[in-house]
């Protein structure tokens, strides 16, 4: 291996100017996609999992599900209600059942109105504690709601910024759905953007301002023994089915363990990852073929040059090395640019998403060994793509080559 052949190779690539850049496009799209994907993937996974971190491992989540089964006209979801709550409470192994409502409502302060998520806090002391534990709520200022509070709210961390033109403080009055509420506390910055933008108010007040009857969005079921979580889940499913006269597979409700929730999201993320990885693979393949094509063209154009080099003592292996070095360099430069573009894309997407969902903790993982691997993989693609043209060049007969 003669290092000066690499110098010569880089000179040849620079001399081909625009053609070299065009050749590298396929490679850098492919590498950029992979780098953006991996760098974002871990951050995205962490951010999304963070949304579920609020869920405790000893709780089951019962929700309403839209179903396509059943006779026509009956597709309206049967909402969870007090009857279901009592049914679940009667099951052995269930400690406490907490009703949750998460709705949107208009929020007005300093004559500015916005639509926000509103969540209830139950009215029983024990249940309140379950919600605080489950959501891992921590106060930045003020105090939490207790069972005796009415027309009072706690606000997420986002409300502490000056979005409404005038700072919100504990003790200020705000208008929610045309009703006046007093702010009694602010939450600490949480890893979930829904929590940072949320309004928490007593259950009764929420039902009152939004005119909600006997229905719940979510029932949080705390079990007595964490190890029996899935047993309790099975029993609950059977009981509710029997109560609603449903066959298996016709469920209009869903019971999830916290792990299942994370799994569902992970499945979606995996699918997205797979699609992007597929695009990256195709792009790298096309990029590789582009390099092969350019190298073949280059061999044909430089037949005479190859003859000259052979006449001054170049061995077949020298010519092979020279051409392989050129295709490897195309891969290397394409790879490095790909890594840079990929990182730029990842950071742009991360700041875009963070801005869209204020407070979503979406950080890019800068995995240096992986980035080096990506660039080296690109070199590998370049070399593989250059093998056949380089072999063809090295085997040229010097006399024929000089005559061309």
């Amino acid at each position, binding site marked *: 291996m003669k290092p*000066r052949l690499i110098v010569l190779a880089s000179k040849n690539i620079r001399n081909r100017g625009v053609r070299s850049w065009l050749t590298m496009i396929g490679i850098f799209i492919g590498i950029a996609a992979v780098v953006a994907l991996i760098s974002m993937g871990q951050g995205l996974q962490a951010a999304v999992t963070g949304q579920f971190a609020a869920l405790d491992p000893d709780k089951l989540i019962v929700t309403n599900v839209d179903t396509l089964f059943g006779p026509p006209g009956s597709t309206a979801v049967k909402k969870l209600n007090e009857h279901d709550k009592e049914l679940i409470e009667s099951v052995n192994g269930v400690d406490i059942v907490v009703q949750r409502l998460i709705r949107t409502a208009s929020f007005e302060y300093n004559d500015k109105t916005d639509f926000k998520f509103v969540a209830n806090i139950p009215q029983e002391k024990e249940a309140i504690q379950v919600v605080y534990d489950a959501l891992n709520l921590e106060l930045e200022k003020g105090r939490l709601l207790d069972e005796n509070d009415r027309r009072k709210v706690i606000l997420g961390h986002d409300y502490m910024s000056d979005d409404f033109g005038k700072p919100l403080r504990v003790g200020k009055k705000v208008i929610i759905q045309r009703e006046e509420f007093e702010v009694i506390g602010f939450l600490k910055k949480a890893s979930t953007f829904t929590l940072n933008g949320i309004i928490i108010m007593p259950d009764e007040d929420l039902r009152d301002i939004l005119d909600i009857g006997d229905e719940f969005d979510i029932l949080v079921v705390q079990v007595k023994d964490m190890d029996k979580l899935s047993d309790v889940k099975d029993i609950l499913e059977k009981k509710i089915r029997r109560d609603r006269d449903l066959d298996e597979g016709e469920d209009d409700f869903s019971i999830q363990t916290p792990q299942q929730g994370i799994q569902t999201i992970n499945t979606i993320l995996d699918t997205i990852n797979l699609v992007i990885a597929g695009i990256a693979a195709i792009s790298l393949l096309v990029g590789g073929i582009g390099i092969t094509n350019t190298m073949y063209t280059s061999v044909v154009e430089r037949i005479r040059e190859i003859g000259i*080099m052979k006449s*001054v003592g170049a061995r077949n292996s020298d010519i092979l090395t020279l051409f392989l070095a050129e295709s490897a360099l195309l891969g290397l430069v394409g790879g490095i640019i790909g890594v840079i573009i990929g990182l730029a894309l990842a950071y742009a997407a991360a700041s875009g998403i963070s801005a869209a969902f204020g407070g979503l903790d979406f950080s890019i993982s800068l995995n240096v060994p992986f980035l080096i691997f990506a660039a080296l993989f690109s070199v590998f693609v370049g070399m593989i793509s250059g093998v056949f043209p380089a072999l063809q060049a090295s085997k040229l007969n010097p006399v024929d080559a000089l005559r061309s």
Partner: protein
Amino acid sequence: MVTKSNQRTLIELKNVKKHYFMGDNIVKAVDGITLEVKEKEFIAIMGPSGSGKSTAMHLVGSLDIPTSGKIFLDGVDISLLTESRLAQIRGKKVGFIFQSFNLIPNLTAKENVMIPMTFQSQSRNESELKAEELLRMVDLGDRMQHYTNELSGGQQQRVAIARALANDPEVILADEPTGNLDTKTGEMVIDFLKKLNEQGKTVIMVTHDADLAKEHANKIYWLKDGKIEKITKG
């Protein structure tokens, strides 16, 4: 310089033939040539176009492999050498000068001269110094960083001469070195070859210019139809 029997034989061709197919016809480019090149000789290979003189020169320079017959380079039968060994020896023992200069475009004069040394694994510093020295020798000290397309024909051929000398070969093979040059520049190139021969290099020049051959060479092989027609002293 007169041929003496005690001079070492550098290259020897024994009944060498080079035939190739062109469609259905066999072209007998070289058809049984036997010759010896001794050190410090100035040899001319003469002949009309199509007489096989270029093919003969490629064979003498071991750039081409004969269809039959033996070629000895410094006493070694080249058919016994591997491709890479032969390339290595060729690069070291033989320097080529072509009619059309055959410089590599996109490289500067100096880089062109450095190319043969690259393939002999010489260090960059060493080859750079050597290339500069050679270019000064051919009066191109002020053109080292020029690209080949910025040089005149005569200058390009002088770069080619410098390149041929890069690995300090014993034999210089010149294929119609003045063919693409005007008379005056041609004479300058010949003067360089003459000087090199006086310094002890063996020069083999292919030409169709009889006056040129007679004036400078001390031995002339006259080729016709791939065979040696006659050998005369210059």
